[in-house]
């Protein structure tokens, strides 16, 4: 039997054209991840690295969070980090072999947890800024 040599184009451009269609979960994880790189860098520098001693006192925290730009940035960070983290946990559970009805129940529970986390975090931000 003669050996047949099949020439295939494995160039990067070719792979890019033939790539599998990205899922919503993958795209959401990439977008939230890139946003987090920016938001967390801003958070770590502004909240910790430029602050004397690394942590603000109570009065300074309240004054800082009352700034509308800071409030909005922290709220966006909360939403992105919760989505990214919970979706990551879901991906790990899929890796562990979670399938079928159990997967649907766990996915629903994780979604509820994400919503609850975001709602609590937003309320906490509001309470710190305006009820302290």
């Amino acid at each position, binding site marked *: 039997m003669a050996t047949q040599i099949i020439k295939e184009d494995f160039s990067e451009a070719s792979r890019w054209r033939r790539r599998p269609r990205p899922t919503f979960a993958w795209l959401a994880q990439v977008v939230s991840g890139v946003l987090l*790189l920016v938001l967390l860098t801003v958070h*770590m520098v502004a909240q910790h690295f430029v602050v004397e001693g*690394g942590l603000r006192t109570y009065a300074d925290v309240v004054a800082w969070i009352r700034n509308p730009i800071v409030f909005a940035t922290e709220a966006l960070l909360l939403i992105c980090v919760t989505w990214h983290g919970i979706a990551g946990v879901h991906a*790990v559970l899929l890796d562990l072999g979670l399938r079928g009805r159990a997967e649907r129940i766990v996915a629903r529970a994780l979604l509820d947890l994400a919503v609850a986390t975001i709602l609590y975090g937003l309320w906490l931000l509001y309470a710190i800024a305006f009820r*302290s």
Partner: protein
Amino acid sequence: MTQARRHDRRPQPRRPRWLDPRGRHLGTWAFVANRLTGLGLVAYLYLHLVILSTLLRGPEAWDGLVELFRRPVFLTFDLLLVAGLAFHGLNGLRVALVGSGLLVDWHRALLVAAGILVGLVTLVAAVRILA
């Protein structure tokens, strides 16, 4: 037989392949580390929310906690956190690029670059936090 059909005939692993360290390449170790740092960071997210909730108990509670967190053991934990964040973020960027079909041939170089950057970020953080 095509590559896809050969792939379909493989028996499904009973446990995730990334939990098995035998014969793994550098990229797989990076994947495992990304998963583990990710899980650690999710745990820290909830710990962070619990800690921030102390602000609701007023200035004395919060300022007392701030004093506690300035102890060396907590500062070391902060440094570990920065290193974990830097690794997860930079390696995650590499995974996003390669997974999207971009710079696939450079994935090892990207991992090395990410490792160097993580080292630099951790070094700067160590000087800032522990000095």
